[in-house]
């Protein structure tokens, strides 16, 4: 499902205009990303938790040359689904 379909579906569910829905979606993503950049964990109810994880620097071996290189420390966005969502979707089989 693409953003367009998502907006259509939400608009259908809430009886809002598509434009309004799009505005709200933009605002939501904006707030989420801003909070994440501030180092906050964002909780999405019944879906999961978005958080920024600190990855320490580590040595890696380049597969091409076999060279040892230090991969720099970085911050990575991670998503952890809620237990109920995880269990709900575990056994679904609907390949296109």
């Amino acid at each position: 499902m693409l953003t367009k379909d998502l907006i259509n579906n939400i608009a259908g569910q809430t009886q809002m205009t598509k434009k309004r829905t799009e505005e709200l979606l933009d605002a939501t993503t904006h707030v989420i990303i801003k909070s994440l950049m501030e180092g906050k964990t964002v909780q999405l109810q019944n879906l999961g938790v978005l958080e920024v994880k600190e990855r320490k620097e580590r040595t890696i071996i380049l597969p091409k040359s076999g060279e040892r290189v230090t991969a720099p420390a970085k911050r990575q966005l991670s998503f952890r689904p809620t237990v109920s969502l995880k269990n709900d979707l575990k056994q679904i089989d609907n390949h296109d």
Partner: protein
Amino acid sequence: MTKLNWIELRKAVAAHLGTSERETAAFMNALITQIQLGLKNERQVRITGLGTFRLQEVSPRKSVDVTTGQAIVLPGYNKVVFVPEIGIKELIQTSTPTTNEEEDTPLQRLGKQADEIVAIIQRDINTAVPAEADSQSSTGESSEADSAEPVQAEEKKTEKAYHFVRDLLITISVIIVLLVGCYFGLRTGIRHWIDDKLHQVEQVITPTERQETRNEKQETRTEEQDTIALEVNQVEDILTPRVYTEFIATETVGKGSRLAYLARKYYGQTDLWVFIYEANRDQFPNPNDIKTGDKLRIPKLSTEQQDLSNPANRQLVDQLLEEYTK
């Protein structure tokens, strides 16, 4: 790490867009249900400006039951993954989290305090002028106001003076702390520097002079330490080399042979090489610079000298080791 929960998120979105919280709530609940439905029906939901939620298949795999040792097949399942958009990923990577106050270094904290003080003083200076102007302009008005206003102005003035004195005191104390810090820092720095210089000078002074200075030092010490005078005398002897008259052997230095080996061979103790070296010191200025073919005389040592369990002798040998391996 702080957390932005569902309600806070809803409030933040409503505030950002200036919409009612009810509308936002309706939207966000719909958003979550639609994402869930999308995952269920289409296995993926893409949100522009954020990323993609996707259902990833984990295929079944073989494993072994730990308790029975039987081979079993773990069933496959789906897991929910979130892949951030490239731009968002980079944005997060380069972002720096807002630091908490506890994480500030003391100097940063001082800097912040100084900024705050400056802000307070500036505010006071700015408010001081309008307050006076107010009290002056109001004199022409009704008598009731006249009687009330000056009192307020008076109060403001005393408050202002109090604030000013307080801020001044804080500034002064901060400066004093900084100065004291600098003073101690510089003092230890200078002391280290002087120590270094002294050390260099000491190395320049010839051994006999050094001997004298050492003797002087020890004399001052012996006044207090009569009981260990004997030991101190021995320490004094260190740099006047013992005279060796009797030799038990003469050894030609072979390949791989070292002073320590010779010491073990003749005395049974490797550390006693210092005595061998001492006896041959006139020929070799450096114990590490003895070549194959050189001839070394092995001195005869008294039983006392060979006894390393005797603390006085142990100390002597240790000091010689230190002296010769400099």
